[in-house]
């Protein structure tokens, strides 16, 4: 059974909807700057969404507070993707969201109250669990039924897309909203800092002198549909989701294997499932976090699969920061823009190729480039490696 993308919605440091993100990408406007809306005292550079919680709650008339920022960002992107779709009894519709730390922004507030012996508001900690963040999105969309949340660190939302596609393929659902959301938290900022992989300057994916990531926040959601569903909804197909694969690196809890084993398996698996050869891929939206370890491992995986015929590739993380669980779906949406508008977004801040692999990403905005098939990677802690492939209709 074929799986089509019929709706997309995104919010990130470079815009509050798809059009704003596209405009920033094509105007080369990144969204990285000092931390906003947080108690964080450090001077890190992050890709904050330019809306406060209060502004979102008011604009979208969000009820049932407290609500985590993760849910709020998810509500914005999922609503945009859902658009004017209607709930119909004849179309089984589900929601598969994903997040790495769920309502951690509210848990931080709760633990501060606890530590400082202030009045404690238990309702804050009830937004902590990942499932709650998805339930709030489902409630906002008036959706009941199959509601699920995946959490595989930074590959989470690519896995949500994959699971949605499989649910449609096996005729368990007709239409499914898939994606992921992560809000900026002190927890994750300090986490990457403690691992010494947080850059104190603008991140430089795939550059020899890259020195770590910039954290971002945001959400990306897609509507996936079967042929049968599209016949009823009359939605326009943006592209077809043709291949997907998840594989375990089984090397280390946080580091990727130097030879890129799991990433290679994920890319090969997705190609095999799509029944495509490496030559069919026109563009790769790389995971490219700008950590020493990821970019070398991913470069090796790309070389393992594509040999001497490396497709155009870039990492868009220098625009948005690393949005963790949301990065997979945000970058798939950027990949869909590449497919539908025949434009390749550049890899910012790149100067010098990595010594060992010598790969050169696309560094200039490339318009009117015929793109038929794109591949997007996301890799997470726990050696969790995922790849999806999208094709023009």
């Amino acid at each position, binding site marked *: 059974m074929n799986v089509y993308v019929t709706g997309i919605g995104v919010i990130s440091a470079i815009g509050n909807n798809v059009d704003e993100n596209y405009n920033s990408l094509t105007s080369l406007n990144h969204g990285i700057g000092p931390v906003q809306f947080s108690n964080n005292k450090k001077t890190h550079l992050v890709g904050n969404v330019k809306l406060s919680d209060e502004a979102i709650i008011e604009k979208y008339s969000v009820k049932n507070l407290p609500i985590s920022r993760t849910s709020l960002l998810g509500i914005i992107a999922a609503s945009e993707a859902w658009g004017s779709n209607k709930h119909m009894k004849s179309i089984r519709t589900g929601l598969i969201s994903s997040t790495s730390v769920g309502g951690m922004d509210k848990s931080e507030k709760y633990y501060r109250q606890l530590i400082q012996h202030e009045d404690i508001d238990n309702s804050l900690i009830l937004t902590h669990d990942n499932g709650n963040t998805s339930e709030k999105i489902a409630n906002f969309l008036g959706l009941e039924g199959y509601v699920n949340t*995946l959490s595989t660190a930074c590959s989470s939302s690519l896995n949500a897309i994959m699971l949605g596609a499989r649910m449609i393929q096996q005729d368990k659902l007709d239409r499914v909203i898939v994606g992921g959301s992560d809000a900026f938290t002190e927890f994750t900022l300090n986490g990457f800092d403690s691992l010494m992989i947080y850059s104190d300057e603008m991140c430089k994916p795939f550059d020899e002198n890259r020195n770590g990531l910039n954290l971002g926040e945001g959400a990306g959601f897609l509507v996936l549909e079967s042929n049968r569903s599209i016949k009823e909804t009359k939605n326009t197909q943006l592209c077809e989701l043709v291949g997907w694969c998840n594989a375990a690196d089984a090397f280390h809890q946080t580091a990727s294997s130097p030879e890129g084993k799991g990433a290679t398996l994920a890319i090969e698996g997705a190609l095999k499932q799509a029944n495509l050869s490496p030559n069919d891929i026109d563009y790769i939206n790389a995971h490219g976090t700008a950590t020493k370890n990821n970019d070398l491992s991913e470069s090796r995986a790309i070389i393992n699969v594509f040999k001497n015929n490396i497709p155009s590739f870039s990492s868009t993380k220098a625009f948005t920061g690393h949005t963790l669980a949301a990065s997979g779906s945000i970058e798939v949406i950027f990949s869909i823009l590449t497919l539908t508008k025949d434009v390749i977004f550049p890899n910012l801040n790149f100067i010098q190729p990595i010594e060992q692999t010598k790969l050169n990403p696309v560094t200039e905005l490339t318009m009117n480039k015929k793109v038929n098939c794109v591949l997007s990677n996301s890799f997470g802690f726990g050696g969790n490696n995922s790849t999806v492939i999208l094709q023009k209709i």
Partner: protein
Amino acid sequence: MGFYINGASAISHQSTFKNKGYTENIFELNSSHELLAPNYKEYIDSKALRRMSQILRMSITCGIDCLSQSGIENTDSIIIGTGLGCLMDTEKFLKNVLTLDGLIPPTAFIQSTHNTIAGQLSLLLENNNYNMTHTQNTVSFEHALLDCMLRLNENDNNVLVGGADEHIPLLDNIASDIGVKIVEGKMTSGAAMFALSNERNKHSLARVMDVETYYGKSKNLQDQVNSFIEGTEIDLILINSNEALEFDLENIVNYSSIFGYLHSGSALALHYAVDVINEEGKQNILIVNYLNDNMGLILISNLEA
């Protein structure tokens, strides 16, 4: 029909681990009962063990034991459901972030992600296959099982699937806010792992016939249950909810009173069901997991039904 359970291993407050027939000796849980943990050193290298939180120790030990029971060397997928994930490490790192000024040790952060369990299993089993973690509140395990069934319908022959959650004292303070009536003020920890397969082998214990989840308020639990079982004669219902179900059946057991309350309690209920099927020869058992608008239903049958 159905998917064969070829291995089942659980650690809980009851004597579930490597103890077939334990369901005949269930005791009533009170706050003096601790988790009945085996000697983890028999399963995990002691150097690795030192760094592991309780949820990792339980899950990995059950995973290894489960695979060895099932007679398979390795598995085509590893799929875990956990409602709250690695809470001990999450809380530890969070407290450090909020109270320490200088550099914070990274170990707790590394082990705080929900997919640490599945990731560690892939490392220990040197398994490069599909590796997934479902975190849908109290029905995380049911979602993991549904994913497992999708995989078995695709190209997998064997899947290691499980549920795990760990207790931290904070949970006791908020139990009533989650809508949980806990045994003498205590929530619990536990893990259960299962080796599921398309194929019956000499180790087969029972079959998972069907699994369903539903999130929302608008459907009635009784109607959902009726349409799920479609006239199958049920011998035993394991339930965690105080919601009244009309069944012409005396055999209804509240599994939270056995295992205490944890988000992955339905995984322990499935382990209980497997034991009862093998010891008492029951045919069909229904697990009803319903809390806070999340419903999970699992139907298990013996090998002959």
